C-alpha cells in the first residue's frame, strides 16, 4: 500500500467531512444505556479488591494471607508470589511490578495483595485480615531531592548507559538535543533570562475509574472486558504476563469514560485475570477514586532550568533548557518528549536541551495528553514572555519573529514541512481578543505549543451489507467521537449519506493488531485506513458493475455513490448505486468488503497558540479566567464540533494544571489529597466559554489533510495562564499550580 509517497493529500471539495453530524453513540450516552467499564456483570461473578501499601517506601518482609483465605466467601487471594517476573522485557516487567509490589512497596498506594470474594463486603473484610510485615524505609517524593547525594534509593542498577558515572542511582537516563553553540548564541544577546521553573504532578482525572471483568477457563482461554485506550495493548501485555498465546485472550473494550493517556497501560487487568484463574470464577474489579489518584498514572512533576538570550529587537540568539522529570517509582518519565518539544516552536540557530529521567516514591507516571510537553512549554514560553515584555515588545510579534516555519530546522533536528504555527500567531494577533481592553488586576497571556502526533498499527474492515448499508469495524476505543469521524470519512469516500455508515469498535478477536488510542493518532491513522478500506471496496464494486455490464473494469469509475461506465467504448449503462451492487453481490462473487491493514507513519506535527485573560484578587491570590481563545491548526477538521471539543477540553485541563491541580505529599510520603474535593479539577463555574479558531493547513501525509488535534491543546495553557497571571499580579510566577496561597505569597513577597 502506497502509504509512503511524498503526498497523500488531494485538494478536494468535501460533502460529509467538515459537517456537524450527530454521533452514532449519542442516544445511548444520553439515556444511560452506554456500557462503560463498571457496567457489565457475569453470572457467578466475584468482586475483586486490592490491598495497598500505606507507606511511601517499605520493604515487604512477609505477607500472611491465611486468615483472609479462611474467611467464608473468599475464593482467591493473590500476591506477587503468584506472578513470574519477565526477565527479558523491563518495560512489561515494570508494569507487572507496578500492578503488584514484590520485595518493596515503592509508593503510597502500591498494590501488595488482592482478594476475590462473593460480595464486596466480604472482600473488604478479607483485606483487613491480610497481614503485611513492612520495614519502613526512608522515602523521597521531590524530583530535585531525589538526585541529591544520600537520597533514598529506589532501585539499584537501573541507570542506563547515558547516565554519567557516579550520578544518583535514581537517575535512569539522560538525553540531549539541539544544534549550534548555545554559549556563542547567548553572547550575542542584549539580555539573557535565566530562570528555574517547577510544575507539580497532575492526574489525567478521567471521571470513570478503571474497571474490568475477567474470566479464565481451565482450557487456558480467557476473556476480559475493560475500559482502556487500547484493548490490543491490554491483550498483549496480559498475554506476556501470563505466558499465554495472544489469540487465547480476547479483550473487549467497553465505552471509555475518559483516558487522556492514563488508560494506555494496565493496572487491574493482570490482577483480575489471576484472581479469575485461581478462583475459577469471573472476577470484576472497579477502582475507587482514591485508588485512581494514589495508584494510577499521574503525569510527571518537573523542575526545569532555562536560559534564553534575545536581542532588543526580539530575536532569540540562543536557548538552553535542562529538564528533570520524575516518572514515579519506575523508569519512563516523558522527559525525552519534553526535551525534544521544548523549543520546537522556534527557528533557532543555537539551541540545546538536556533531560533527566528520575525515579522517586510516587506512583508510576502514565502518559497524559502530549506527555512531557506542557511542562517544557511552561518554562520556555514564560521566559520568552519575560524577555519580550522586558524589551517592551509585543509578545506575539516576538514569537512571529522567531517562529518555526516550512524549512526551519527544528530544535529536535527535523526540517519542517508545511506547518501552521505562523498562521495561528497571525490569527491570534488579528483577533479582537488581542486588542480588547483589560481592567485593574487583569492580565493577558499568550503562549505557543507543539506536539508530534504519530501513526501506528491499524486495521479497518469495511463491509457492505446486502441492503447497501456499510459497517466499519475498527480497533480503537472511541474516546471523543471517533466513530462519527470514521463513519464520515467512509461516507465521504463512498459518496453515500453519513447515516448509511455504522462504525463499531471491534474486540481483539475480530481484527489484527491496533496501536493504542494515543499520540493523537486515531482520526489520522484510523481515518486513513478507513479511507483506504473504502477505496478497496469501491474498486471491488466497480469490478462487480463491470461484470454485470460485461465491460472492462477499467472502464468503470466510482462517483456520487455509484459505479459509472465512463471508459472509451464502455457503452451506455445507467449508473449502478452501491445498494444496487450490494443487492446482487451473491450473484457476482459474494459479499463485498474493503479492508486496510497498515502502519501509516508520517503523521504531521501540530501547533497552537492560546490567549487568556485573567483577573487576580490581590487579597486572596485567587485567579479568575475571564476569557480564553484557542488557535490551532487541525489540518482538516473532520467533525468541527469534536475538534473544538478537543481544543476546549485540553485548554481546560491546562487551566486546572496551571491554577489548582496538584499532588500534595505529606512529610510521611503519603498522598494528602486523594479525592476530587481536594484534588480540584475545574468545574463549570470556574470557567468562561472557551473560544476556538480552527485553522486548516492540510497535512500532506493524509488523503484529506487531517492532523492529530487531541494533545496539542494542553501544551500552551500552563504558560499562557502563567503569563497572564504574572502580568495581572505584576510578579513572575515560576511554579505551578498558581494556587491562591502560592500566588498570594508571591504577591506579598514582591
Amino acid at each position: 500500500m502506497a502509504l509512503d509517497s511524498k503526498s497523500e493529500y488531494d485538494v478536494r471539495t468535501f460533502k460529509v467531512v467538515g459537517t456537524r453530524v450527530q454521533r452514532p453513540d449519542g442516544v445511548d450516552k444520553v439515556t444511560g444505556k452506554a456500557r462503560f467499564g463498571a457496567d457489565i456483570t457475569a453470572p457467578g461473578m466475584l468482586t475483586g479488591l486490592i490491598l495497598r501499601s500505606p507507606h511511601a517506601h517499605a520493604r515487604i518482609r512477609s505477607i500472611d494471607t491465611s486468615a483472609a483465605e479462611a474467611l467464608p466467601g473468599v475464593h482467591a487471594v493473590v500476591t506477587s508470589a503468584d506472578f513470574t517476573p519477565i526477565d527479558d522485557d523491563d518495560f512489561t516487567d515494570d508494569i507487572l511490578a507496578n500492578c503488584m509490589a514484590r520485595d518493596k512497596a515503592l509508593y503510597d498506594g502500591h498494590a501488595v495483595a488482592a482478594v476475590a470474594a462473593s460480595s464486596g463486603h466480604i472482600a473488604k473484610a478479607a483485606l483487613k485480615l491480610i497481614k503485611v510485615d513492612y520495614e519502613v524505609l526512608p522515602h523521597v517524593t521531590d524530583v530535585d531531592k531525589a538526585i541529591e547525594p544520600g537520597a533514598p534509593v529506589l532501585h539499584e542498577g537501573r541507570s542506563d548507559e547515558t547516565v554519567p558515572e557516579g550520578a544518583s542511582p535514581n537517575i535512569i537516563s539522560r538525553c540531549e538535543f539541539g544544534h549550534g553553540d548555545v554559549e556563542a548564541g547567548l553572547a550575542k544577546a542584549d539580555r539573557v533570562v535565566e530562570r528555574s521553573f517547577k510544575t507539580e504532578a497532575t492526574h489525567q482525572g478521567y471521571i470513570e475509574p478503571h474497571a474490568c471483568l475477567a474470566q479464565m477457563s481451565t482450557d487456558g482461554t480467557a476473556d476480559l472486558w475493560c475500559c482502556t485506550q487500547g484493548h490490543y495493548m491490554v491483550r498483549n501485555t496480559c498475554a506476556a504476563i501470563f505466558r499465554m498465546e495472544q489469540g487465547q485472550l480476547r479483550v473487549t473494550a467497553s465505552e471509555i469514560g475518559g483516558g487522556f493517556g492514563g488508560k494506555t497501560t494496565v493496572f487491574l487487568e493482570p490482577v483480575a485475570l489471576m484472581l479469575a484463574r485461581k478462583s475459577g470464577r469471573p472476577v470484576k474489579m472497579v477502582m475507587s477514586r482514591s485508588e485512581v489518584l494514589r495508584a494510577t498514572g499521574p503525569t510527571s512533576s518537573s523542575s526545569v532550568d532555562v536560559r534564553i538570550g534575545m536581542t532588543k529587537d526580539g530575536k532569540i540568539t540562543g536557548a538552553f533548557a535542562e529538564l528533570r522529570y520524575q516518572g514515579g517509582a519506575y523508569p519512563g518519565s516523558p522527559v525525552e518528549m519534553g526535551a525534544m518539544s521544548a523549543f520546537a516552536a522556534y527557528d533557532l540557530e543555537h539551541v540545546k536541551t538536556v533531560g533527566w529521567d528520575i525515579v522517586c516514591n510516587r506512583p508510576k507516571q502514565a502518559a497524559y495528553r502530549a506527555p512531557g510537553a506542557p511542562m517544557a512549554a511552561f518554562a520556555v514560553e514564560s521566559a520568552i514572555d519575560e524577555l519580550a515584555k522586558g524589551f517592551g515588545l509585543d509578545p506575539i510579534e516576538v514569537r512571529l519573529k522567531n517562529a518555526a516555519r516550512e524549512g526551519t530546522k527544528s530544535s529536535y533536528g527535523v526540517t519542517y514541512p508545511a506547518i501552521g504555527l505562523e498562521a495561528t500567531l497571525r490569527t491570534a494577533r488579528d483577533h479582537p481578543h488581542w486588542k480588547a481592553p483589560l481592567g485593574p488586576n487583569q492580565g493577558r497571556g499568550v503562549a505557543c505549543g507543539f506536539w508530534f502526533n504519530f501513526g501506528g498499527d491499524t486495521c479497518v474492515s469495511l463491509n457492505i451489507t446486502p441492503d447497501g448499508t456499510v459497517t466499519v469495524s475498527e480497533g480503537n476505543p472511541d474516546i471523543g467521537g471517533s466513530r462519527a469521524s470514521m463513519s464520515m470519512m467512509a461516507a465521504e469516500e463512498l459518496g453515500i449519506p453519513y447515516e448509511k455508515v455504522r462504525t463499531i469498535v471491534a474486540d481483539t478477536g475480530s481484527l489484527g493488531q491496533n496501536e493504542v488510542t494515543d499520540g493523537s493518532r486515531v482520526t489520522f491513522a484510523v481515518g486513513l485506513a478507513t479511507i483506504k478500506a473504502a477505496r478497496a471496496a469501491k474498486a471491488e464494486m466497480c469490478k462487480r458493475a463491470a461484470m454485470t455490464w460485461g465491460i472492462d473494469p477499467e472502464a468503470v469509475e466510482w462517483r456520487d455513490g455509484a459505479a459509472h461506465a465512463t471508459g472509451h467504448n464502455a457503452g451506455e449503462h445507467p449508473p449502478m448505486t452501491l445498494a444496487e451492487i450490494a443487492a446482487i453481490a451473491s450473484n457476482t462473487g459474494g459479499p463485498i468488503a474493503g479492508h486496510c491493514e497498515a502502519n501509516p507513519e508520517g503523521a504531521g506535527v501540530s501547533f497552537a497558540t492560546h490567549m487568556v485573560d485573567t483577573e487576580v484578587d490581590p487579597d486572596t491570590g485567587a485567579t479568575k479566567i475571564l476569557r480564553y481563545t484557542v488557535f490551532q491548526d487541525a489540518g482538516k477538521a473532520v467533525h468541527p464540533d469534536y475538534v473544538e471539543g478537543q481544543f476546549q477540553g485540553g485548554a481546560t485541563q491546562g487551566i486546572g494544571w496551571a491554577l489548582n491541580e496538584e499532588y500534595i505529599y505529606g512529610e510521611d510520603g503519603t498522598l494528602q489529597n486523594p479525592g476530587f474535593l481536594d484534588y480540584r479539577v475545574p468545574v463549570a463555574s470556574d470557567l468562561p466559554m472557551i473560544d476556538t479558531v480552527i485553522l486548516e493547513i492540510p497535512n500532506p501525509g493524509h488523503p484529506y489533510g487531517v492532523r492529530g488535534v487531541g494533545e496539542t491543546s494542553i501544551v500552551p495553557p500552563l504558560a499562557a495562564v502563567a503569563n497572564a497571571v504574572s502580568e495581572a499580579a505584576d510578579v513572575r510566577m515560576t511554579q505551578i499550580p498558581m494556587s491562591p496561597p502560592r500566588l498570594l505569597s508571591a504577591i506579598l513577597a514582591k
Partner: protein
Amino acid sequence: MVAVTVFGSLARFTDDKTTVEIEASNLRELLEGLGEKYPGLKPQLKRGVSVAIDGRVYNDSWFQPIEPDSEVVLLARLKGG
C-alpha cells in the same frame, strides 16, 4: 551513503559526531548499519527510536525508502497520550 543526525546524548557513542554516514537505502538497513558501525548505540536502538525521514516520523517501517539526499534524523521513541 546517508547522513544521519543523532541527538546529542548519543554522540559519545558515535565518536562525538552528531552527523554520521551510513550505507542504507531503507530504514531497516539504516538501523542495522548504525548498530554495526557504532555498537554503543545498540542499547538505545533496542529501547526504541523514531526516525524522521525528510520531515516525517517513522517508528517501525523497515522498508521505508531513504534517498541519498534525504534528511535523516534519529529521535527518541515518540510516546503519546
